[in-house]
């Protein structure tokens, strides 16, 4: 691809006008992002493959440290210098996996944009809201100042900020957390990106504001026919709002399926465990939660075999030595990495064997109290 320079030959958006409209928007192939540290190579993302079509939404779910944020930053090209990158990332058919920041600058804003978790630290505290929105418009789209200001105003109105005209002249500290996140969304949408990353967009917010922000993201995504990657640790957040979900654990996708199928026919024990650990409103109070014991493995030295084996109630000797591949043996499109999947005879037998032995192959104590299978030592 020829190097593109700002403000030559029209705006950045024009340069993508020859992009094919069919086929997937984003193709991620065996992406590995490893960080060089004093302790060794941290395998934050370790072989992730997925693709995303135009106008579709994918949810990426996992615990802290599973690599979900690093994955979206790898695609955006927002990585520090101590990184080793492998694999391919195709955006509209163009390879951007190894692109330099200069090249990526043409993608940011007009092609892909990101909404970050913490709206206070991602906004510039000494810059007026209006200028923060017009900045990217002026940079990427080569428009007049007046046009940029009008657009900023209509953007603020479209993200549901009351008294938008006054807000344009305010600073971030004058806005509440929810309002700041709306401003972040307005900035991300300013140049009409085809792909929006929302990295834990509501984790710092109250439940009522969380619902408002998620509604807003979904509404904008539909109206603009934009693809969206929604990154979160809460399966509840992605349940009604995504077409597909990829569950990540220790740098890998362990289960990937259309949203309905993932919830209706959960196959991977980690996905099952994540679902069970959410407190449900329809449970009586003081219902004991089924927590996942322990912590994710050290990504400098990931264990051989299945990376979830040490915390899994189904673990068998095979899980400690062989790593299961990501395959969809049953339903097409519903892929998972497990030898003893949930809802299969093999899985049921494995669990029964572990319950009879009182521990799993990795030595994790497991027993049944009532209908609940508990792992770890109970007090």
């Amino acid at each position, binding site marked *: 691809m020829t190097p593109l320079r700002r403000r030559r030959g029209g705006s950045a958006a024009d340069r993508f006008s020859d992009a094919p409209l069919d086929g997937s928007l984003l193709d991620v192939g065996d992406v590995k992002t490893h960080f060089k540290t004093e302790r060794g190579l941290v395998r934050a993302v370790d072989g992730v493959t997925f693709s995303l079509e135009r106008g579709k939404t994918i949810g990426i779910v996992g615990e802290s440290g599973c690599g979900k944020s690093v994955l979206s930053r790898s695609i955006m090209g927002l990585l520090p210098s101590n990184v080793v990158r492998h694999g391919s990332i195709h955006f509209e058919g163009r390879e951007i996996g190894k692109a330099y920041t200069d090249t990526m600058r043409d993608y940011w804003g007009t092609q892909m944009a990101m909404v970050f978790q913490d709206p206070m630290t991602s906004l510039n505290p000494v810059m007026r809201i209006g200028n923060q929105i017009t900045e990217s418009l002026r940079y990427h789209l080569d428009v007049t100042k007046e046009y940029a200001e009008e657009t900023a105003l209509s953007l603020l109105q479209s993200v549901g900020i009351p008294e938008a005209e006054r807000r344009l002249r305010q600073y971030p500290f004058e806005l509440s957390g929810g309002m700041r996140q709306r401003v972040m969304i307005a900035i991300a949408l300013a140049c009409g990106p085809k792909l929006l990353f929302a990295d834990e967009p509501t984790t710092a917010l109250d*439940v009522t504001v969380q619902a408002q922000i998620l509604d807003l993201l979904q509404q904008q995504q539909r109206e603009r026919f934009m693809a969206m990657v929604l990154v979160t640790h809460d399966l509840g957040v992605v349940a009604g709002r995504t077409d597909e979900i990829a569950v990540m654990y220790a740098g890998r996708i362990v289960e990937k399926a259309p949203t309905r199928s993932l919830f209706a026919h959960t196959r991977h024990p980690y996905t099952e465990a994540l679902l069970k650990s959410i407190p449900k409103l329809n449970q009586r109070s003081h219902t004991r939660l089924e927590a996942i014991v322990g912590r994710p493995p050290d990504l400098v030295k990931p264990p051989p075999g299945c990376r979830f084996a040490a915390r899994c109630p189904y673990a068998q000797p095979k899980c400690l030595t062989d790593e299961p591949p990501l395959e969809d043996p049953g339903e097409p499109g519903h892929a998972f990495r497990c030898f003893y999947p949930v809802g299969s005879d093999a899985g049921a037998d494995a669990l029964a064997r572990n319950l009879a032995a009182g521990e799993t192959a990795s030595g994790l104590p497991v027993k049944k109290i009532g209908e609940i299978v508990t792992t770890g030592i109970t007090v």
Partner: protein
Amino acid sequence: MAGTGTAHLRDADDTLLRVEDLVVEFPAGRSGLRVHAVSNISFDVKEGETLGLVGESGCGKSTTGKAIMQLPRPNSGSVVFEGTDMTTLDGAELRRTRTRMKMIFQDPISSLNPRRKVEDIIAEGLNIWDTGTKAEQQAKVDEMMLAVGLDPALQRGRRPHQFSGGQCQRISIARAVVTDPKLIICDEPVSALDVSVQAQILNLLEDMKARYGLTLIFIAHDLAVVKNVSDRVVVMYLGKMCEVASPDLLYEQPAHPYTRVLLDAIPVPDPSVRPDDRPRVAGEIPSPVAPPSGCRFRTRCPKAQDVCANTEPEVSEVHPGQFVACHFPLAPGETLPVGNGARPI
């Protein structure tokens, strides 16, 4: 409710804490205006009970927790703990009482001193009060670390940065329980944690409560979490109480429109529930510097009428064990209109 009243207070011998007409106000800069953080809140906690305080940011739930500890002292109202009014205590007496009443904070990492070892952090309360010999203190620290699921032999010499957020919260719990308190005020103890770790900490709190005979005040904004741990829930809004009931009753038949709003905002891990079909409340919590007249929730309430602006609702019992401060409480099964039905602020 967003109102006042004391109809929900219980007359019982085993009441551990009774808070009446608590008012906390702060000056708003040099403007001469005042931030009405908590306005006439009353509740009581029985021994062995878990009381949930729930509401959005800015509803005064954390301020209430701190005012019970007298940090800072409330502007007015009484906080009777084990038969003594905390607001009348001073100096050593107050500090001595505080060993019986502990707090766990939201951010587990910043609430631990990064330069101290875990064993010193946990032992500090014992040190200050010279409880037992050095060896006894050491044994007590080890017991606490084991109880919260940490390995004393391996981890007692480590510093907070060597632990994950969930483990730091375990250390905070050990530090709170070590002085043998009666009451622990948990201020959003799981909001900063992942769902999987959240479940571990909630289970741990339940275990510690049973093992050490604790009474808990559990402050959070997520009603699903509060429901899981509580025996009685107080829903707060902008410094006022809305509804007081058992969590199961609150969930089955919320009587205050705001409780309904909080329930509907919780994300459901079920793709067949379309979030668009659920009622939403418009806008955000108004400024506590100039709270709305009458019922403070009226500016966002889809059921608000003229009377709500003029008269503040009082707490009254709508069903046995369910108290609500609202002029138009919801009937069992009643839902709010879908979409942003509320008037803009």
